[in-house]
C-alpha cells in the first residue's frame, strides 16, 4: 500500500490544491482512505492531519472504511422524491436489513441514498452496482434484491 501511495504522490506537485485530487486517486485505487493515506497526505502537502481528516469527512465522496461487494444507491432528488423515492429507499432498507448509509456485511450489501444523480426524467432512479435503473417501482424491489444477494 505504501508503495501505491508513494506512486500517486509522486505524480502530483506538493501544492495544497492537489490534495483533494490525491484523495480521489487513492480511493480509486484502494476503495477507501486508510489512515496511512491521510497521514501521508498531511506530510506531503504540509497540512495538519486534522485538516485532512476534516476534508475527508466534509465531502461525501470519501470514505474511511472499505465499501461492500454490492452497493445499492437510491436517488433522493426532487423528481425522484415526488415519484416515491422515499418509499423505495424504505423498501430496500427493509429487504436488505440495513439502514441507508450503512452496510450489511452478511449480505455484502451497502445501501446509500444520494441527493441527485441528474437522471431526473427517469425518476425514481436506483443504481445497483454501478448500473443505473430508471422508473423503479416499489414492487420491483424484491426482484432486484433477490438478484443482487443471489450473485456472489
Amino acid at each position, binding site marked *: 500500500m505504501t508503495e501505491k501511495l508513494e506512486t500517486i504522490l509522486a505524480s502530483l506537485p506538493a*501544492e495544497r490544491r*492537489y490534495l483533494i485530487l490525491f484523495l480521489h486517486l487513492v480511493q480509486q485505487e484502494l476503495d477507501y482512505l486508510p489512515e496511512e493515506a491521510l497521514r501521508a497526505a498531511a506530510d506531503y502537502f504540509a497540512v495538519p492531519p486534522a485538516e485532512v481528516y476534516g*476534508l475527508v469527512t*466534509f465531502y461525501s465522496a470519501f470514505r474511511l472504511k472499505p465499501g461492500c461487494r454490492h452497493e445499492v444507491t437510491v436517488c433522493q432528488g426532487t*423528481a425522484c422524491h415526488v415519484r416515491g423515492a422515499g418509499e423505495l429507499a424504505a423498501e430496500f432498507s427493509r429487504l436488505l436489513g440495513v439502514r441507508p448509509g450503512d452496510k450489511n456485511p452478511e449480505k455484502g450489501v451497502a445501501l446509500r441514498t444520494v441527493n*441527485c444523480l*441528474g437522471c*431526473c*426524467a427517469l*425518476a425514481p432512479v436506483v443504481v445497483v452496482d454501478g448500473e443505473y435503473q430508471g422508473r423503479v417501482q416499489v414492487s420491483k424491489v424484491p426482484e432486484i434484491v433477490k438478484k443482487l444477494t443471489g450473485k456472489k
Partner: protein
Amino acid sequence: MNQKRIRTVGELRALRTRLQAAQKPPRLVSVSAASCGRASGAMALAAALDEEIGRRGLEGSVELRLTGCHGLCQFEPNVVIFPEKIFYPNLVPEKVPWLVEETLVHGRIVPELAFRESSGSQIFPRLEDLPFLKKQVRWLLDRHLTLDPGRLESYLEHGGFMALEKVLSGISPEEVINLVQASGLRGRGGAGFPTGLKWRLARQAGQTEKYLICNGDEGDPGAYMDRGLLESNPFSIIEGMIIGGYAVGAALGFIYIRQEYPLAIERMSVALEKVREAGLLGKNILGSDFSFDLELIRGAGAFVSGEETALIASIEGRRAFPRQRPPFPVVRGLWGQPTVINNVETWANVPMIIEQGPSWFARMGTAHSKGTKIFSLVGKVRYTGLVEVPFGLTLREVIEEVGGGPEPGQRIKAVQTGGPSGGCLPASLFDLPLDYESLQKAGSIMGSGGMIVIDEATCIVDLILYFLRFAREESCGQCAPCRLGTARMVRILEKITRGEGRPEDLELLEKASWTMREASLCGLGRTAANPVLSALSYFRDELQRHVLDGECPAGVCRGLISYTIDKHRCGGCLLCLDACPAEAIEVADDGYPRIDQKLCTRCGACLTVCPADLSAVIKLNKKGAGAGEGSREE
C-alpha cells in the same frame, strides 16, 4: 486519430472547410447516449444497430453515431435518423432489424415505432412534428442531435471554433466584452448577473493574475441541464472559456464538475485533451500572443460547493466553506486574485453570441432576459426531459404545451423552480412569463433551471420538509442561522407530518424563515427558507388543514392518513394479511381482515395488493384512531 497542431487562423479555417466538404454517408442514425440514454439501454441499442447495419452491408451508406443528450429523456433510448429526422422513441434492440429493413434499406417510416400521444392516436414520425418541440427554440440542444461529443472534428464540422477564429482575427478584448454585454447575456446559474459586466470588472483589474471558473457543480436536486451540456457538447464550453480568457486577460481556467457526473467528467477530460492537442489550448493559440489553458477539477460531493466562494475554497483544496461577500470573486477570488465564475450554460452561450452577433441573440427573450434557457422539466408531467425555450414563454406554455400537461387522471397543483433556494408556484400563477424578475417577484427564483411539476398527489408539507432536510444535511455549519434554523424547521415540519402540529407552528416557521433570510452568511442559508415562505403564501390553506383539521389532502403524511378494510367489499382473500410488513392485519371474529391502527405503519402495502375489482382497502386522508373501528362495526 491524432490531431495535428493547428497553428494559424487560416489553418483552422481550412481544416473546417475540408471536414465540412468531406464525403459522408447519405444517412445518419443518431443514438442519444448521454447518462439518461445509457441508463435506459442506449448502448445495447447501439450495439444491435451496429450489428444489423453490418449484417445488411449498409456500412457505406449509413453512419451510426453516439451523441449526447437529445433532451428527449422520457423517450430514452431513442434514435433520430437523418436526413429526414425520423424519430423513434423508446426503442428496444428487438425492433432493430425491422427498423433497418424498413427505414434504412427502403427509406420507409415504421408507423408502429413512431411517437404517438396515446395508443391508436395519430403518429408523429418526424422530429419537427413532435408536439412538445413546437414551442422550443433549441439553439444549444439541437446541436446535440448530430454532434459526436468525443470528436473535435465533429465540433469543427458543426462550425466549431468559428467564434474563436473571429476573435483572434482582430477583435480586441474590450470589443469582445462589448459584444457580450450588448447581447444581454445573464448568468444561467441562477442569480442572473450580467455576464459582460462581470467580464468588464475583471478586465479592469489590470495586469494581474486572473482566473476563470466554469461552475459545473450542478447540485440542485431535479436539475440536470449542465450535465446535458457537458456530456453532449463539451467543446462549446471550452470555446466559450477560451474567448472569456482572452477578453478578461486570464491565462488559466478551471472546469469544476461534480463527482456524481462521471460521464460528464470523462467527456470533458477527453475534449480538453483533444483541444489541447490541436493547439487551441496552450501557448500562443493559433499563432497569436494569447496563451490560455484549462484544468478539470472533480468535485467531491458537497452541495454548498456550488456557491461561488465555496467553489473557490474547494478548488484551493479546502473544505467548501463559503465566505462573506463582498469582496466578490471578480475582485478577490481564487488565491485572492480576480476570478470570473460563470455557469456551464453561460459559457456554452458565448461562442454563439460572438459568431452570430449580439443583436441576433438579443432578438429572443424579454426586455431584461435575453436568449434561451434550458430547463429540466421533470416530475408529474407527461413529457419530461431537457427543454430549451426563449425567455418570456409562460409557465403554462412550458408545462402544458412542452410538457404535455398532467399525467392521465391527475391535476397539476404547482411547479417548483429554483431547487432548494426556490419556491412552489401554484397553478393559478402559470401565466407568469419565465424570466429572472417575474419568478423572483412571485416568491420563487428561476435558479439554474430545475422545474419540478407536482400534482394533487404531492403534499406541500412533505415537499418543503424534503427541501429543508436537504438544506440541513448540506448546510456547511459555519453560521448559526442556517445550521440551527434548518434543523429547527425540520423538527417542526416533522411534527406536522406526524399529525402533532399546532397552529402556532406556522408562525414559528415564518419567524425562523425570516431570521435565516436576514442573518445567514451565504446564499444557501439566506434562501434555504424560500420553499417554506412560498408555501406559506400560496399553500397556507393546505398547511392549516394539517395543523387544524388533522388532514393531509394529498394523502401523503403518514401521521395524517389511515387505512381501513371495508368488509362489505372484502372477498376474504387475505392477500393484505400476507403483504403487511408490520403484521398489523389480523383476521377478526367475523372472518374478515382488520387493521390494527396502533400497529399500522401506513405503508399502503395492503392497498397495493387488494384486487382492483374489490378495492376493499380504503385510504382516508385523516388520522386513523376512530375511523378503523367505525367502519368495522357498521
